[in-house]
């Protein structure tokens, strides 16, 4: 008896869906798109609510009619033959006109919101350039001369105007809690702007790439920190300096020592004039303890082995020597892809294939938000990045590790030993 099945199964299905809906309403959803954190998203949520209301009405009307019809007009033995009705013009007009009317209630606010969202951003907005790479995010603050990666700081209450472009394939920039997404398109510059509302308290949010971009599309994440204006200025003032312990910083310190001497002629590869580190402001970063658990990555660690005991005795000076001495380029070509402002670089920001490392030690995450930044994880990463992020453009450097590019293990002579990696990590962790 098929109808028996309907009676039996339908309630189960309804209960299952209702339970899910309850789950959806009750839980803690850190990436919810229904937030009211920006005026941009207010518009989206307003439209969503309206569509949800209208859609629910249509849904209920249709399904009730359907279920009623199914039960009411079941065939009964010996029942009369149904009336052979072929159609009804009035009905047809009705069920075209009513949905059309419903759509008007949707179309008008939609068009209004489209034009509202796509106005020119206010001229005093904070400018942020977002540059997509396979598979990480570069963020630049042209008004401050800052280039950073995978961690975005935004002042609360200030409009931020993003200009979006990509260095390779298409990507899409999205912080669900702060508003809709915008694609990064090769040979084009895209824009989106919004204002984190003034009454927000500082917080960390997850962001992600939402345009499929190849192997590690899923691993192209980032963090956004909304901070107070004061905190932002502190952060920015520090971030724009050269790296601590860098060539420029050492030279500057030496210059400060011998105060009588003339200004040292430090040449950095950086394109932006760099304030002297002697005057370096205090380091300020978003406090990690204020980051909610869901903004701290829990990506599983790779099988790569690393002698952790070496990390404690890592020699930063030796690590720096490995990176910056051209003689070591074959072994540790780090600075051909990464920029450390204040060091002798082989790449500048516009050529860099990898994230800017100037203040890497001030970040909480790395690897496009995949991993917590700590000595051990960093060491594993340098040893064998592709094992931690599939398709990683950064190759395998650890001696003895399998390198997919050359389809064999990295020979001991060409690769970095655990000792050397520990030194490099020690150096990187000085880059506050």
């Amino acid at each position, binding site marked *: 008896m*098929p109808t028996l099945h309907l009676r039996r199964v339908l309630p189960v*299905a309804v209960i*299952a*869906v209702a339970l*899910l809906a309850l789950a*959806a309403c009750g839980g*803690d959803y*850190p*990436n*919810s*798109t229904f937030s009211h954190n920006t005026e941009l*998203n207010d518009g*989206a949520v307003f439209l*969503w609510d309206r*569509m949800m209301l209208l859609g629910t009405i249509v*849904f209920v009307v*249709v399904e009730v*009619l*359907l279920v009623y*019809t*199914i039960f009411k*007009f*079941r*065939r009964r033995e010996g029942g009369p*033959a*149904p009336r*052979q*009705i*072929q*159609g009804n013009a009035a*009905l047809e007009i009705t*069920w075209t006109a009513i*949905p059309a009317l419903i759509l008007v209630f*949707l179309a008008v606010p*939609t*068009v209004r919101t*489209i034009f509202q*969202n*796509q106005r020119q951003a206010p001229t005093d907005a904070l400018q942020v350039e977002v540059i997509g790479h396979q598979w990480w995010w570069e963020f630049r603050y042209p008004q401050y001369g800052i280039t950073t990666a995978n961690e975005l700081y935004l002042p609360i209450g200030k409009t931020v105007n993003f200009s979006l472009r990509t260095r390779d*394939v*298409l990507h*899409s920039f999205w912080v*669900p809690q702060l*508003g*809709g997404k915008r694609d990064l398109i*090769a*040979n084009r510059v895209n824009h989106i702007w919004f204002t984190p509302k003034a009454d927000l308290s500082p917080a960390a949010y*997850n962001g*992600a790439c*939402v345009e*499929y971009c*190849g*192997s590690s*599309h*899923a691993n192209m994440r980032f963090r956004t920190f909304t901070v107070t204006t004061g905190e932002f200025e502190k952060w920015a003032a520090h971030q724009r300096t050269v790296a601590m312990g860098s060539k420029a910083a050492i030279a500057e310190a030496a210059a400060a020592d011998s105060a009588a001497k003339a200004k040292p002629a430090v040449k950095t590869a950086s394109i932006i004039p760099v304030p002297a580190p002697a005057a370096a402001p205090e380091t300020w970063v978003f406090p990690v303890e204020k980051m909610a*658990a*869901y903004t701290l990555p*829990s*990506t599983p660690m790779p099988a790569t082995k690393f002698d952790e005991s070496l990390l404690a005795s890592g020699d930063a000076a030796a690590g720096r020597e490995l990176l910056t001495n051209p003689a070591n380029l074959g072994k540790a070509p780090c600075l051909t892809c990464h920029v450390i402002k204040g060091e002798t670089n082989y790449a500048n920001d516009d050529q860099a294939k990898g994230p800017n490392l100037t203040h890497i030690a001030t970040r909480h995450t790395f690897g496009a938000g995949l991993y917590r930044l700590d000595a051990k994880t960093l060491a594993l990463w340098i040893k064998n990045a592709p094992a931690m992020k599939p*398709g990683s453009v950064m190759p395998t450097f650890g001696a003895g590790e399998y390198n997919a590019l050359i389809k064999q293990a990295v020979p001991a002579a060409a690769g970095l030993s655990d000792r050397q990696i520990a030194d490099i990590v020690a150096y990187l962790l000085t880059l506050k």
Partner: protein
Amino acid sequence: MASSAIPTHAQGASGASQSSEQSGLWSWLTTVDHKKIGILYLYTALFYLLVGGLEATLIRTQLAKPNLSVVSAEMYNQLFTMHGTTMVFLVVMPLSAAFFNYLIPLQIGARDVAFPRLNAFSYWVYALGGLFITLPIFFGMAPNGGWFGYAPLSGPTYGGGFNMDFWVLGLQILGISSLAAAFNFITTIINLRAPGMTLMRMPMFTWMSFVVQFLVILAFPVITAALFFLQFDRFFGTNFYQVQAGGDPLLWQHLFWVFGHPEVYILILPAFGLVSEVLPTHSRKPLFGYNVMAYSGIMIGFLGFGVWAHHMFAVGMGPVADSIFSVATMLIGLPTGVKIFNWIATMYGGSLRFPTSMKFAIGLIAMFTIGGISGVMHSSPPSDLQQTDTYFVVAHFHYVLYGGAMMGIFAGIYHYFPKMTGRFMSERLGSWQFWLNFVGLNLTFFPMHFSGMLGMPRRIYTYDAGQGWDVFNLTSTVGTYMLLVAGLIFAYNFFKSRVSGAPAGSDPWGAPTLEWSIPSPPPEYNFAQIPEVTSRYPMWDLKAPDRMAGIEHSHADAGTIAEAHAVPVHEETERRSAKELGIPIPFPTVKPFMVALGIIILFSGLIVMHAGKFPLAMAMMIGGGAFMVASLYAWLTSPLE
């Protein structure tokens, strides 16, 4: 597959020239009978349904929990690319084609399609092209740039290797098949309708198929051009989508979606047509608002060409374009909604019976409504920017394609299985399949609405713990296994019923249209005598003339319809061979298969060329091309019948 008809009926059809000597593999390779080709399409597409379903199962298994590594990132990317490509091009379109082939000539009272050999060619290009695009996954070389193949990721610079070569060439091959079939069916429907079968008397399935064929011939050339560009970029170093030469990735997106959106209607309209056959039959009532149903189909097809950029609201087209495409997209909801209401009105006041086909048809109405409503939600760009490229979209189009297209196709299979085989499918197993499908699909896809709106992007092979998505993903995965079980029950039912299903007569459901006037399975010539049609419901005229009194007929004297109708009903006893009846039947021929084979060799040569083996590649391309042209000439110069 090889044994042709059910034994009892095969005896009846002893004289038919397709019987004994042609029941082997060779008969299938050489057949030009639209019914056999339809069955070939059906079996092949069901095979690919299993393939696509297994791909989906692997995908969902990988996503069951955060940070799993059931498959690698690279394999996952191949799986989701192939799942989409398979389901669109190798499953839903060919399943529709199976019904086009089997049903259109029967519904319009024709003996075959307009070009029987071209029809065989379409099938073989599809079957071989399907292998071309599917087999590489066993070598880890399957397409990995998404079914949408966005440049420049699909281009030579970022999409190295053979993966996307197989995709770009495979879609070209499948496009040839679809185009050839579409020309064939347009011609068939325009030109081979039985006397009295006016356009407005055509069964609704034929109507929707008619619209679909126009969508195919107008949409496929656009992706053909787009694919040629990509192919040239990949193989000959042109600059269409090459960023460094100034190429514009949006060109691909526009061309792809000018095809891609009509493609959605190519997938769904045949299912709408099938449901429009099933509902009136089991409601014992004519389709409500036939004219409106036909016109709304045309309207959907027409508007379908004007809404493509709603797939691109995130690319920054500017407020004017966003608004235009937004409103156009909302408009397309109207003719679609009208269909839903007309179906319900068809059932309303009817005398409803609920065999499995009816369950699936009702399932389509219930489930497609959800997909339709979430579709309208995408039409509002400010809100869509939060939805696009998230699991909300995945939920939306699976309600459209599984809840809509696949439900409709299952309805069609259960409805027409008796016509194709002369036997019923098991209703008990059918009921199990339906309910598992119904619950499974809601378990799988409904939670995706939540995970999407709660921030989960599409096309990610993994996600971190604690993002609030875990319960939804696990539910989806459980649902997917339920769908897999439902699919296996269907397969069992299908194959078992072929052999031992209860015998069905020529008109087991009391359906209104011409295909039910001939034996099941139909003889190779379909109609011993081409019927003359006087109304939309010739079989009801015959079997229930009293009910048909109010229905418009070309004969004024509605009271004597039973005598006036000219539908010859061919009972089993009337089975005679085509030869006995003097009906010319097209000769079986292997030439269409050979032309298709030549095309595959030619395209494979391009892959070999990319592998750097130039002499072999040239040999394959020249050899395949020559083989194709020679077979084509042989085909054209040999007589049809």
